[in-house]
């Protein structure tokens, strides 16, 4: 469904991605894990065109995407949803307005239609009573659930999550993971950058381990966690699992 071939990206003199190839097919849930600075975010962001790779190609449903071309970028983004570590809700809009802005402007949904859909999604993430609230009145976990619902408003076929729970207080992590699990069970295709190893083990169909801009190891969660093949993955797991 999405294929990235030989992606490289350098910031100033940091090689964030070094000839990375990656693909994901429909219904798959891929968790990207790896130490800080290994290029997980950059990979996610390249898939959505938030970063433009220096070299390499990205294909969505077999079609090569040039993100510097506005039309192609828009078409590609209409298929992907992105959830950010810091939620990035629009602070000057109520939850409802956050939800309906893009569908109305971009998908030309009518207001009523958008509101109906927004209510449905808000209740799915357990926030039916918050549509009038402004983001600053919500807890971190609530904000992230709104952000997920806001992405879903655009009917994405694949969801990209960049550390969706890393900015949350520990007691709020579960509620967001629950929403993501629910999405996974409904068959959503997902790329998830996460440090929540338990979550990755439970829902991933595949683990991709990155370090220093390279994919070091790629395996099913069972095998990856029980018998990591590379020294680097072993060291990493030792650190994060004590």
């Amino acid at each position, binding site marked *: 469904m999405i294929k990235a071939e030989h992606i490289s990206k350098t910031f100033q003199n940091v090689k964030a991605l070094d000839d990375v190839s990656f693909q994901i097919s429909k219904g798959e849930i891929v968790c990207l894990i790896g130490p800080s600075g290994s290029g997980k975010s950059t990979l996610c962001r390249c898939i*959505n*065109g*938030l970063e433009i790779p220096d070299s390499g190609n990205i294909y969505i449903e077999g079609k090569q995407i040039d993100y510097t071309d506005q039309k192609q970028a*828009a078409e590609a*983004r*209409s298929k*992907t*949803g*992105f959830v*950010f570590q*810091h939620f*990035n*809700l*629009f*602070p*000057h809009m109520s939850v409802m307005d956050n939800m309906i*802005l*893009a569908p109305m*402007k*971009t998908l030309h949904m009518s207001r009523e239609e958008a509101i109906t859909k927004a209510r449905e999604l808000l209740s799915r993430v357990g926030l039916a009573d918050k549509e009038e609230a*402004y983001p*600053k009145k919500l807890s971190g976990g609530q904000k992230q659930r709104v*952000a997920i619902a*806001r*992405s879903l408003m*655009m009917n994405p076929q694949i969801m990209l999550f960049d550390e969706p729970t890393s900015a949350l207080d520990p007691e709020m992590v579960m509620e967001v993971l629950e929403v993501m699990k629910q999405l996974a069970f409904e068959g959503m295709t997902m790329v998830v950058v996460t440090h929540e190893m338990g979550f990755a083990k439970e829902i991933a169909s595949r683990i991709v381990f990155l370090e220093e801009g390279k994919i070091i190891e790629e395996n099913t969660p069972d095998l990856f966690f029980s018998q990591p093949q590379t020294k680097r993955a072993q060291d990493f797991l030792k650190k994060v699992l004590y």
Partner: protein
Amino acid sequence: MDIQEYFGKCLEIASNPENYKTLLIGAVYSLIVASIAWVMGIVLGIIGASLKLNKNKFLRFLGNCYVELIRGTPMLLQILFFYLIMPTLITLITGNAFRVNKFVVGTIAIGINSGAYSTELIRSGIIGIDAGQWEAAMSLNLSHWDMMRYVILPQAFKQVVPPMVSEYITLIKDSSLLSTIGAVELLYSAQIMGANYYNYLFPLMMAGVFYLVMTFVISSIAKKVERRLAESD
């Protein structure tokens, strides 16, 4: 003339209601000049900021030229340019005598000047918006225009209100520069009055009071508005 006479003259001026009326009319002119120039400056500021933030190198260059040219030269010189040089040039080019209204050219000059400062205010308001807001709007596939219109500008606007109010207050004071080209705004009314009575103490001090009242009222209103805006955050 001794000091008693000097203050006696003051009382004479102060006891004539006509004099207050004259100054009040001057103050109204000052306020009108400042208000029109301010609005003009905001419009130019939006244009200037979109030039300076443009992808196109040439447009960015134009924006920079505007800002640097205006901010690097005295406002008085700019006013004199529009009053003394521009009409002559137009007359020479078209062959028809081109006469200007002092208030009109003065207001245009101040407006163009204010536009350069507003450009910088608006530009920094826009680039001050968290990158995550742009990215979220982009990932939701909003068009560039919708992104600016619904996400970026409303947030930038809130940040820009306080410095814009200071700009307005600055303009009320700067409008006094039009006295040098003989536009009868508040300061020049006071000067004329002083010249008539051979005593400047009361007219100039009273003009100062009028400026103070105007700037004070505006900043009080602005504080209320800002508080309101902060609440809706």
